[in-house]
């Protein structure tokens, strides 16, 4: 056999150790995840396949045997449950990003106005928040509105996004005048310019902790563990912070 005939075989063998590892990620983290994956692949040569859905859907899939090597959830509850159920590797759970809320509008009528002030007197304007029952950002939005003493008076003005991205969509298409959206998403260049915005103080709601866990029943532990280490490291943290999240120092 002439040497050049061996080349494809050698390439195949050398790539065998870098078989892609599949990691599940909450939909709200897709954009930072793409950057993290690109940086990780460049640094290690290890390919990462990303599977995304809402945290609830991913949780149900994992409970039913989906073979993800790790989960980057949008909350801390689901990773905690997976750990308690013995599905996640004990002690692997950590907070990789902390979300913050932004009061945001694209309504021309609010241009140059005080966004927080508009919340006190909504009139017939709609206020979009994520569903408090299903979305951590929604629970935080509810906590903030309660803390501010506004929860009862905004009741009949509220519309609920299924997740934080849909909440932003309601506001960006001006179907809702105002929305409590994720800071990480409201800065997107794809969106119309904000007519007013206000950063909700993190002291006014419980922290929106996004946690990750390593999952047990797969043989891809080493690669997945390396990825989680990477996002917890300085380079990963810098990428996550640049996307509008807070990260532990």
């Amino acid at each position, binding site marked *: 056999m002439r040497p050049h005939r061996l080349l494809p075989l050698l390439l195949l063998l050398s790539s065998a150790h870098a078989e892609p590892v599949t990691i599940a990620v909450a939909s709200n983290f897709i954009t930072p995840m793409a950057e993290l994956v690109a940086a990780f692949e460049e640094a290690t040569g290890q390919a990462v396949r990303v599977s995304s859905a*809402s945290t*609830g859907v991913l949780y149900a899939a994992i409970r039913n045997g989906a073979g993800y090597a790790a989960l980057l959830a949008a909350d801390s509850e689901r990773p905690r449950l997976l750990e308690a159920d013995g599905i996640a590797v004990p002690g692997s759970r950590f907070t990789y990003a902390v979300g913050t809320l932004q009061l945001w509008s694209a309504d021309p009528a609010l241009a140059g106005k005080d966004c927080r002030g508009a919340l006190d007197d909504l009139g*017939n304007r709609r206020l979009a928040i994520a569903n408090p*029952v*299903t979305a951590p950002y929604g629970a935080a939005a509810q906590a903030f509105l309660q803390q501010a003493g506004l929860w009862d008076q905004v009741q009949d003005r509220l*519309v609920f996004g299924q997740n934080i991205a*849909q909440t932003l969509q309601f506001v960006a*298409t001006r*179907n809702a005048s105002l929305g409590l959206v994720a800071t990480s998403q409201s800065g997107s260049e794809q969106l119309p310019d904000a007519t007013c915005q206000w950063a909700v103080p993190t002291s006014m709601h419980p922290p929106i902790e996004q946690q990750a866990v390593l999952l047990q029943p797969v043989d891809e532990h080493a690669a997945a563990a390396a990825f989680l280490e990477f996002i917890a490291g300085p380079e990963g943290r810098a990428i996550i912070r640049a996307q509008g999240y807070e990260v532990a120092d």
Partner: protein
Amino acid sequence: MESLLQPLWLSVKLAGITTLLLLVLATPIAWWLAQTRSGLKPLVQSLVALPIVLPPTVMGFYLLIVLGPAGALGSWWVELTGSALTFSFTGLVIASCIYSLPFAVQPLAVAFESLGKQKLEAAWTLGASKADAFFSVALPLSVRGYLGAMVLSFAHTLGEFGVILMVGGNIPGETRVVSIAIYDQVESLNYAAAHRLSALLLVVAFVALFTMFLVNRRWRR
């Protein structure tokens, strides 16, 4: 349980109103499709059938823009009534009529086509006006088509999810229909409640379809 019954009732109400509206809206469209020799027929057929092919997300996204206060239809509605169409029950009725239109038009068009020209021409020669001939000849002979249109529109609207998810805003008692409530329960790990609602919906959908096929069979004999 009350919190489960409200979304179910809302779905039934939405499907019922949509079905009634669709019977009125679909009749002239189906009649025209059955009678016409116009070159526009394939165009109208395609437009009517679009909701079968398009993902609900596409329709939901366009409807969110068109029905919204900044949209063509939405801004006109705001001027007329002072409130927006999105996030309202009225908005859902409009969205559902578009979404389920083909399921009303197609059974009716088939029924009208199978009438044949002769019976109508006989009625006309006996001096019946076109409207008279339609109501006293075509309509009674198309009962099966109407039954099919009703059951399919009702069942299809009952099972609507994606469009409502996108334009409804999940407001309890206004736009939180049963499919959305089920999704919420699954998302919040409340599987027992999700099971109850799902089973209920399954039974309602099955009974509706079974009734249609049963009645259809009786008629054919």
